[in-house]
């Protein structure tokens, strides 16, 4: 055992007040990056440890939804798919959507779900929702692999456009984080989000161009539609994976990015303003 450090001027000085000024917020967050890694690793292990079919469950959902949407929108409603096989186009849209919906709901419950930690140990609370987003990425990667297999099967593997995909993926992660920060913080005080969120997400799948292409929306509504940030992201995914037969409008991407950044900025602000009060209410 070492002696406690004798030179106390080297020791960090911490000030605790009723309203943390947050000066060291990001440096403290950076110092906790190992903890973030451990939390992600914990959640992944716990998630896949006990379910023997753990992996396949993550894949059942997109496949099932792909079938349903292709049948309803493709076969029955004869909606356009812009030159791609309808199921493949649906799957390319399901990739971001399912990542969004499942991770958003996980991350929104994450602070309450870790109540025992929040009420006992101090660490930057931002780690909690961020962990959920990173864990969700694992499922996303698996689904992406399945997409690649299917795309080879259809003879339409991604072309060079795919190099843009990481950018859209990054935007998606930031969007999820932004939304989750709001809800995760609010649900500490209002538990009803647990019931509200599934309803919103259920509606969202029809409000976003998941089962159909965004070209279905009449032109005069397109700009309004683009304020749903998932529109730009889903279009971006389809364009990156299926090629330039898919629509990609720069103005829509711009709106989507702006909405994303606004949500992220306001979410971070709200979360930071309230995180020091979590343990009072949790």
């Amino acid at each position, binding site marked *: *055992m*070492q*002696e*406690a*450090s*004798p030179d*106390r001027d080297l*020791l*960090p*000085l*911490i*000030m*605790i*007040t*009723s*309203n*943390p000024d947050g000066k060291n917020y990001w440096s403290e967050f950076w110092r906790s990056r*190992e*903890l973030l890694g*451990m*939390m992600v690793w*914990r959640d992944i*292990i*716990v998630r896949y*440890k*006990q379910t023997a079919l753990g992996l396949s469950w993550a894949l059942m959902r997109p496949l099932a939804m792909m079938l349903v949407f292709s049948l309803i929108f493709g076969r029955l409603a004869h909606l356009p798919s812009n030159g791609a096989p309808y199921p493949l186009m649906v799957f390319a849209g399901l990739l971001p959507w399912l990542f969004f919906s499942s991770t958003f709901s996980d991350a929104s419950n994450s602070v309450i779900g870790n109540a*025992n*930690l*929040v*009420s*006992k*140990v*101090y*660490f930057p609370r931002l780690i909690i929702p961020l962990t959920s987003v990173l864990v969700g990425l694992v499922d996303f990667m698996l689904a992406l692999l399945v997409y690649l297999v299917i795309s080879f099967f259809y003879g339409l593997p991604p072309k060079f456009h795919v190099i843009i995909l990481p950018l859209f993926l990054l935007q998606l992660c930031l969007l999820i984080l932004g939304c989750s920060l709001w809800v995760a913080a*609010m649900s500490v005080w*209002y*538990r*009803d*989000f647990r019931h*509200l969120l599934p309803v919103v997400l259920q509606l969202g799948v029809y409000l976003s161009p998941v089962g159909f292409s965004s070209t279905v929306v009449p032109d005069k509504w397109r700009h309004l539609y683009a304020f749903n940030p998932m529109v730009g992201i889903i279009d971006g995914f389809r364009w990156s994976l299926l090629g330039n037969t898919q629509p990609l409008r720069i103005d829509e991407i711009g709106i989507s990015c702006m909405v994303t950044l606004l949500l992220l900025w306001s979410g971070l602000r709200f979360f930071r303003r309230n995180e*020091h*009060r979590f*343990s*009072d209410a949790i």
Partner: protein
Amino acid sequence: MRKSIIVEKVSKKFRIHHKMERESQEVGLLGKLLGRGRMEKDLSDEDFWALRDISFEVNQGERLAIVGRNGAGKSTLLKILSRVMSPTAGKILIRGRLSSLLEVGTGFHPDLTGRENVYLNGALLGMSRSEVRQKFDAIVDFAEVERFLDVPVKRYSSGMYVRLAFSVSAFLEPDIVVLDEVLSVGDASFQQKSYLKMRELASQGRTVLFVSHSMSAVKDLCESAILIENGRIKEKTKVDDAIGDYMRHAMHIHGANMPLETEQVDLLALHVTQSGRKNPNYNFEGDEPVDVELIYHVKENLQHFRIGFYVKTVFGDMLIRSLLADRNPEMENARPGTYRLQAQIPADFLVAGDYVLEVHGSQFGVQDFFSSNALQPFRIARPKLFNIQHEREQAFGHIYLDPGWSQEQISG
């Protein structure tokens, strides 16, 4: 003296939701938006100050105990110091890495193995991965769980679980350690071991904050103490004084209300006085006798009846057991009636300090009438004539004895 912790006028307020709580939670956000929940909430909320204007300073290397009854605000204070909670008002400065060993096992995940949990818990407590790796063997060795390292901790016995959890936190090397009732984990031998570990931590020049209900552990580990009562503190004192205050306070609260009635014997009154004066604080001079008077009522014929008192230390160690029938065998058989029993603790007998007088009444092998319900704490001051070596000398032992010292000079 360098300060480790400076606490300035810290207060913490909680909102208590009275019985409307369930309703307003059901109303929730939606109700709030519609303006319904709000009105009910205002009616049912009340502010509760868990801490009020707490100020104290802790020197580097000082071992400070925080004592107080359950609900006095100790845990809230520790939570604020460890940054889990924010104060409502006030300011705290902390120099150095502060780690708290509040409730061992926080952050253990039942599905992870012992090994995995050690790393996870280490990270939660602020240890880097390499730091944990470096101490891993020592931690596992201390916890005595080598054979079960790769078993999920949910299959651990509760003893193994707390041992491992304690070990992780014990091998942290913070500058300031906050210990909250951690000594009570595991079996007797592990308790002893963890206690020694705590002493080791405390003896390395670290600042230690210790919260426990075990007064003997407090006395052993700490040099100074603050007593929290209803969210306020008295000034920092030497540990003995704080323990004395705490025990006296605690017993006033828990002490029995006279009369203490049982089926066969009622204890009607207990008077502890000095020179015929009642002393509301029971602070007595050491060079005058202390009078004890018991008034009790016997309802039926009792065989082998003993009544009298114990004098105990505040830690519960018995110093004196003195019963009426000890030297009066004929008093063993009690007839119905009301009795006054008087006794005296002689002058210059108890050493300065805090004591508890406990009334004992029993029938041998049959029953104990008052259990430990009739208690009177009291404090004895140092006899004026006692020749102390220096002003701040502590009290040694509990009983004065004048063994008739005599000395003669046998050579020049």
